[in-house]
């Protein structure tokens, strides 16, 4: 990609990266009470959203909402400062949150919730934010009506196609899976439009997220389901771990052999993939939650790797890595806030934080 494409977005990324909370400070927050966390966050980039959302009340839900609002603001700044293929890629990434909000609407409508109650479950991010969702839900009180009101939107057409007999009778899985598949396919399609170097970096950073998602789905199925027939229907589009590897991994007898199969398949691939799967094989006897936690950290590991590897300033890696790191920061803050609200031991909370491997 030409450096000109990055001329406006890179200073913004650099500025926003400086605002990320230092990991030591973040870990130091663990174990502190909500007032202290609030006081800390008020002196960070989250100040504006914290003050406007919380006011005098310090509640976990409000703090969480403020974090999302800050992410939305940051994302919108990046969108505003981007153009061309970068803007398209960011838009496709933003669709992940659209899918999250659409799924929330479907679930809540199916559960028979009032539309005003549903709005508090909507993440203030993406196309289907609270205002847009309110407009949809005020007129539609069934799933088909919600889908009907989306027909001129991005997901409207294909959701209408997917709304079938099974969905009509309460099983939202096909609809939700189709929505996620469409989002990830959209991201991979947009990556294809980038130039050679950017395409490689973006495929690595976004691809590991999609690939690890597929591995997590297979592991969850293997650990919890008796019937492995319908795994394939639930898998997302693939990046570096292709369908043939996924199929052969599904056929493996147990979790250990499945992870060994994955490990063998990535031997010639990216170093982060090799490291992640080597670690998974090593810990294959651990509980499934531990294995999934290792996979959760994979996008962050890849982000750090690409940042170290590609020192050339103008590349997509900076943008995608920043988004990953910002999102992980918000997840970690949410974990600390909710852990404190439920009086969870700080060691237990620390084990749930997504931190860099060599921290």
């Amino acid at each position, binding site marked *: 990609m030409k450096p000109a494409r990055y001329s406006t977005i890179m200073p913004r990324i650099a500025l926003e990266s400086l605002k990320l909370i230092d990991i030591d400070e973040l870990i130091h927050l663990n174990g502190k009470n909500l007032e202290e966390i609030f006081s800390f966050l008020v002196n960070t980039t989250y100040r504006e959203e914290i003050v406007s959302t919380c006011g005098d009340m310090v509640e*976990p*839900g409000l703090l*969480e909402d403020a974090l999302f609002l800050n992410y939305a603001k940051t994302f919108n700044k990046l969108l505003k400062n981007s153009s061309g293929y970068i803007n398209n890629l960011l838009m496709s990434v933003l669709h992940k949150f659209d899918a*999250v909000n659409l*799924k*929330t609407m479907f*679930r*809540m409508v*199916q*559960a028979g*919730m009032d539309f005003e109650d549903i709005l*508090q*479950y909507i993440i203030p991010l993406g196309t289907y934010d609270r205002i847009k969702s309110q407009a949809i839900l005020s007129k539609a009180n069934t799933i088909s009506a919600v889908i009907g009101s989306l027909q001129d939107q991005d997901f409207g057409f294909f959701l209408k196609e997917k709304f079938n007999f099974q969905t009509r009778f*309460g*099983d*939202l*899985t096909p609809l*939700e*899976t189709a929505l*996620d598949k469409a989002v990830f396919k959209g991201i991979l399609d947009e990556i294809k439009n980038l130039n050679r170097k950017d395409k490689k970096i973006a495929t690595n950073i976004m691809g590991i997220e999609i690939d690890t*998602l597929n591995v*997590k*789905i297979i592991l*969850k*199925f293997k650990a*919890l*389901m*008796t*019937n492995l027939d*319908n795994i394939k229907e*639930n898998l*997302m589009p693939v990046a570096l771990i292709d369908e043939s590897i996924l199929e052969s991994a599904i056929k493996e007898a147990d979790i250990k052999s499945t992870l060994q199969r994955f490990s063998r398949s990535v031997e010639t691939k990216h170093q982060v993939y090799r490291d992640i799967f080597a670690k998974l094989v090593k810990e294959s006897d651990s*509980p*499934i*939650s531990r294995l*999934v*936690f290792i996979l959760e950290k994979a996008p962050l590991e890849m982000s750090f790797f690409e940042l170290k590897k590609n020192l050339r300033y103008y590349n997509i890696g900076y943008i995608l890595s920043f988004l990953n790191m910002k999102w992980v920061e918000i*997840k970690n803050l*949410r*974990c600390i806030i*909710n*852990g404190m609200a*439920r009086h*969870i031991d700080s060691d*237990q*909370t620390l084990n*749930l934080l997504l931190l860099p491997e060599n921290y």
Partner: protein
Amino acid sequence: MSAERLEVHPTRLELLALKRRKTLAEGIADILQKDLEVLIISLVKYRERASILRTQLYDVLAMSYRYFIEAEMVIGSLKVKELALTTAPIDFNVEIKTATGVLGIQFPSLDLIKHKESELKPRLSLIDAPIQLVEAAARINVVMGAVVELASLTAAIRELLEVISLKRRQINRIRFKIVPQLDSTIEYINYILEEIEQQDAIRVRVLQRKRKERSEKSDETSSL
């Protein structure tokens, strides 16, 4: 406190009948006591099993709750609520049967009937549900069998306690009401019979004396 006497005729025949009844009552009390001991041993065994099961159940539930809290920490309580609202409920039923236990007592037996179809599909969203929530739900699903077994054991313990209480009341009734009543009546009849015997003896002695006096008088008149 003296036991109430039975309304019987104080005859030797009744006395024998009452003594037979007392022997029978004591025999029954001994049998009931043995039954009671067997029931108590059985109760202790059931209680131990229930205690082990309850500890296991609490451990699993505590672990499940821990996972649930972790899920809330990872994705937020609203998301957990959202996923929970649209999760397919576990389709199961509890069949109540009766099983013959110790001393032929009929216990209620509960069997968990799960519909296999529910295990074929994931209950929670594979993409959105954190593994902690999936594990918490899976553990709850597994623990259902233990909950039903514990309920079955509790029902059996309650039944045993009722039978033990009944047996104890029966034993107490025999030992502290029927046997003392019989003892008291036997004692009374014995007393009456002794009284009659004494009166008879006196009467015999008086008659003998009178007969003796009469014979002495007749001897005197004949000698004159």
